[in-house]
């Protein structure tokens, strides 16, 4: 995990294709480049996939063992671990940016408050829906009687 953190420090984001390859490796557990291409869902050349997995390996996100003339790649971290590391690094970068140290923190609080408010709105909708459902059930019961 330590290596992943340090690597995220210099290059925190993964490209869309890198993410796709990583997803594929998570679903397989471990795979060679040929195995990744076998199901036909990745429409890229063999060499492109090979370069991408090699880049992910160099970023410290994959382990590899030699298998014949190729390598078998295994993700070094679970998806949740990677997500957590990415989130932590983003927050660290946010807090480290800006001249006034309290300013980025206030952005974070604002973002969290907005997120909280959205979450509460969603919960409120769920409660209202359930209440309407109960009322209509009650009404139907009364009509049947």
């Amino acid at each position: 995990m330590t290596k992943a953190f340090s690597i995220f420090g210099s290059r925190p984001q993964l490209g869309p294709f890198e993410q796709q390859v990583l997803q594929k490796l998570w679903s397989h557990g471990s795979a060679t480049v040929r195995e990744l291409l076998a199901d036909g869902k990745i429409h890229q050349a063999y060499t492109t996939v090979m370069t991408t997995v090699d880049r992910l390996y160099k970023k410290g996100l994959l382990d590899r063992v030699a298998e014949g003339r190729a390598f078998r790649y295994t993700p070094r971290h679970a998806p949740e671990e990677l997500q957590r590391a990415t989130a932590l690094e983003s927050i660290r970068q946010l807090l480290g940016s800006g001249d006034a140290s309290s300013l980025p923190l206030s952005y974070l609080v604002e973002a969290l408050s907005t997120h909280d408010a959205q979450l509460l709105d969603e919960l409120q909708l769920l409660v209202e829906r359930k209440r309407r459902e109960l009322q209509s059930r009650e009404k139907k019961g009364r009509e049947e009687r």
Partner: protein
Amino acid sequence: MFALRGIAVSLTFFFLLYCLLSALVAVAWRSLRWLHATEQSLAGLLFALRVLPLAASVVITFVFVVPSFQLLEPRSIDEGMGIMPPALGICALLLIACGCFRVIAAQTTTSRVVARWLEGAHPLNVDAADQADTQTVTFRSRRETPPLTLVGVSKPRVLVSESTVALLSHDELHIALKHELAHMQSRDNLKKLAFRFCPFPGMAKLESAWSQTAELAADDAAVSNLDDAVDLAAALVKLSRLVPVEAAPVCTVGFVTGSISARVARLLAWDEAGKAQPMRIRAWCVIPPVVVVLLCVFVTYGPALALTHEVTEWLVR
């Protein structure tokens, strides 16, 4: 010298046992998650586990260590003492002093904050509050005050802010008060204070798990049908918007505590048939094991005292 040695040995024994049991509890409490029991039973078990190290250490020290020293240690011998008993005895005294300080500090802070909240407060007449033998008061809403909270240990009171009364419907306020009264009946503030008395690193997660479970248990105790559950969920969502940023003092149980989305989802999925399914651990279930332990102690008391004395002798050297 005899008395001093006795005290040092007893305190050493108490301290070592307390640390050992606390470390075991800090690791082992997670196994309770596999238990399919009601939230009320789970909260009770978590609380029992949290205070077990202190209770067991005190009981074992007074039942075995002190009598074994008094009965089996020859008074005439002026035996020397190693460095360990006084050092660990001082650690035990520091632990007890730390516990007392944390309790007093928590009580003092709570009293001070609650006194500030109660400026200009007046009683609230709600039938849910009348049913229970408690005082429910409303107080003027300010930025730092919680919307609905139970305060106090010996004389608990439910505090309701004016904005809560204005915001909630009659049914929602009634069920929210019932939730707080359920906390009062389970003496949750006293339990929180008990946690302060037994400090040990690594217990925060157990305390947080107890807090979450106690909230769910209070939800269960307040709700008796789906209408109640929806009212409680609605109250929870409405009051979540009023929660202040400032942390509440120790001897209070706020209504908006724990994971709100999980609580709301649970309440909306409430069904009367499902409530009876999990196992409820009754208080009388504890009686048979306690009787067995007491019988074992009674039968093996002599040899147990001799063994304890041997252990304490080893500690002294």
